[in-house]
C-alpha cells in the first residue's frame, strides 16, 4: 500500500497542530493514508481535548513568558512540546483501519501504532518497549506518549521521538496548587522520564532519527512512503484549524466540575496526587507520588499546630511503601498516631481518613 509522506520540516507552533487536524478532517472513506513529520519552531503547551485549559496550565506564566497554549483534538494531558521532539502523525480514514492492519480494540490499537516508534528507538540503540495503554518506556522510564483522535471520517495517531526534554519548564507551566507539588512533579519527571540524549549521552542527528522512524513505519505496516504535500483542499482545512485552534471558543470549550484532588500523570504507572482537607484546626494537604499503585513518596503539610514539632516527616514516612488502598492507609494511620504519640490540635484521625478517601478515589 502507498502512503503519502508529508515531511513538513520546521513549522510554526500553530501549524504543528493545525496540519494534522486539517488533514485528518479532510479524510473520506477512500482517502489515501498519510504520515506527517515535523518539529515546532518554539516551545508550547498542548492540552488534551477534555482538559479545561485554565485549570491545567498556568496560563498567566505562559502568557508572560510567551509560551503558547493550544488545545488539541487528541486525548491525554498537558504536555510541553518543542523543537527537541520530532512529531509524527499517522492519518487514515476510519473505514480503512482494518485494511491498514489496525486492531479494533483500543489497547491493541495503541500497541500496534506504537511499534514504528519503538522499532526506530531500537534501531538507534535504545531499548524501548511498549507499556500499556499508550506509553513507550526505556527500562521503566517514559520516552514518549501517544494519543489517538478521530475527527469526522479520519483517525490520527500522534506521537513524537524525544531528543531532549525540559523537565523544569514542564513542571513550571502546569497549574499546581503549591510549590511542594511542583517539586514532586519536577522530581517525578526527572526520575521517570528519559530522552534519546539521556540514553545515548549524545543528541542523535535529526535525519538519522527521521530515517529510522520512517523505515520502521514501512516495515511494521508493510507500506511504501511516497513524498507528498498537502492538497489544496487539505490546505483549506488547515487554514480553518489555524483559526479554530486559536479561538477563545475552542480553548474554553471544556468546563469540568471542580475536583478536590489534583492529579498529574507522569507516565502510565507514575502519578503525583495532592488532596486537601479543611480540618477544624486548619488545612491539611497530602502530596503523594504513586508508582505502580504503591505510595513511593509522601509529603504531608498543613497550617495546623502539631506536637512533637518536626514529626511531619516521620509521620509521612509511615505511608511510604503502602498500596494506594484506603484500608491500608488507614491501618498505617492508626499505627502512626499511636506509635509516634502525635498530638495535632484540631486535626484528628477522621480528617486524615477524608484525605485518604480523596486520594484513593
Amino acid at each position: 500500500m502507498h502512503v503519502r509522506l508529508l515531511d513538513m520540516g520546521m513549522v510554526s507552533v500553530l501549524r504543528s497542530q493545525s496540519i494534522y487536524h486539517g488533514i485528518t478532517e479532510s479524510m473520506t472513506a477512500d482517502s489515501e493514508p498519510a504520515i506527517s513529520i515535523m518539529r515546532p519552531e518554539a516551545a508550547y503547551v498542548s492540552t488534551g481535548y477534555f482538559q479545561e485549559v485554565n485549570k491545567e496550565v498556568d496560563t498567566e506564566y505562559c502568557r508572560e513568558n510567551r509560551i503558547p497554549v493550544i488545545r488539541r483534538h487528541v486525548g491525554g494531558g498537558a504536555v510541553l512540546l518543542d523543537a527537541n521532539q520530532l512529531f509524527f502523525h499517522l492519518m487514515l480514514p476510519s473505514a480503512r483501519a482494518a485494511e491498514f492492519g489496525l486492531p479494533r480494540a483500543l489497547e491493541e490499537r495503541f500497541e500496534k501504532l506504537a511499534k514504528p516508534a519503538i522499532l526506530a528507538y531500537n534501531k538507534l540503540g535504545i531499548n524501548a518497549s511498549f507499556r500499556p495503554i499508550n506509553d513507550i518506556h526505556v527500562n521503566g522510564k517514559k520516552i514518549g506518549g501517544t494519543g489517538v483522535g478521530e475527527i469526522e471520517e479520519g483517525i490520527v495517531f500522534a506521537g513524537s521521538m524525544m531528543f531532549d526534554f525540559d523537565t523544569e519548564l514542564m513542571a513550571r507551566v502546569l497549574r499546581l496548587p503549591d510549590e511542594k507539588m511542583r517539586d514532586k512533579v519536577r522530581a517525578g519527571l526527572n526520575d521517570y522520564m528519559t530522552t534519546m540524549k539521556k540514553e545515548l549521552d549524545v543528541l542523535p542527528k535529526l535525519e538519522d532519527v527521521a530515517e529510522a522512524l520512517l523505515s520502521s513505519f514501512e516495515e511494521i505496516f508493510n507500506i511504501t512512503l511516497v513524498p507528498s504535500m498537502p492538497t489544496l483542499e487539505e490546505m483549506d482545512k488547515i487554514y480553518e484549524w489555524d483559526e479554530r485552534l486559536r479561538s477563545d471558543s475552542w480553548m474554553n470549550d471544556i468546563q469540568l466540575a471542580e475536583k478536590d484532588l489534583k492529579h498529574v500523570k507522569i507516565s502510565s504507572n507514575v502519578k503525583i496526587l495532592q488532596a486537601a482537607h479543611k480540618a477544624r484546626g486548619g488545612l491539611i494537604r497530602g502530596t503523594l507520588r504513586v508508582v505502580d499503585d504503591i505510595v513511593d513518596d509522601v509529603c504531608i503539610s498543613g497550617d495546623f499546630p502539631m506536637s512533637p514539632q518536626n514529626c511531619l516527616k516521620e509521620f509521612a514516612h509511615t505511608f511510604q511503601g503502602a498500596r494506594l488502598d484506603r484500608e491500608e492507609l488507614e491501618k498505617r494511620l492508626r499505627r502512626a498516631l499511636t506509635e509516634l504519640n502525635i498530638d495535632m490540635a484540631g486535626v484528628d484521625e477522621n480528617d486524615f481518613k477524608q484525605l485518604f478517601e480523596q486520594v484513593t478515589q
Partner: protein
Amino acid sequence: MAEIKNCLLPDDLYYSVENNVWVRDLGDGTISLGMTDIAQTLAGSVIHCKPKAAGKKVKANKSIATVESGKWVGPVKCPFSGEIVAVNEQLAQDATILNKSPYKEGWIVKVRPDNLEGDLANLAKGADAIPGFEAYMAEKELGECIHCEGFDG
C-alpha cells in the same frame, strides 16, 4: 432481550449497526440515542463525554458527542439529521455511566429527527439487529461484551 456473546440488545430499541448506537422512539417526535453495549465494550472505560449543545442541528452520520477513553478521543455519531433537543447533563459529572448503564442512564442526547418515520425504517429493531452486529463483531474481532461492576444494562 436479544443477546450475542454477552452483548445485550434490548428489544424495544432501534439500532444503527454502522454507527454502533441505539435509538429509542420517545413517541413525541423525538428520539434518545446512546452507545450500544458493544460500543461501550470496544471503547473501554469512558473518561469524558461532551455532547453537542441542545439546539444544534446535526447531519446524518455525523458526530453528536465526543468521548474520551484512554487517550482516544472520538465521535458518537447520529444516524439521522435533525436537531438536538436535550443532552444528558449527568454525563459531565460521570461519563462511566456510558459503561455502567448504556441503555438506561447512559442516553447521550435527545434529537428531533427531520424525518422520524423514514429514519426509523432504515434501522434494525431489537433482535433484527443481531445478524448485523454479529458481522460487525466478527469484523472487529470482538469476542464478547464486558460489563463493569454495577452494570445495569
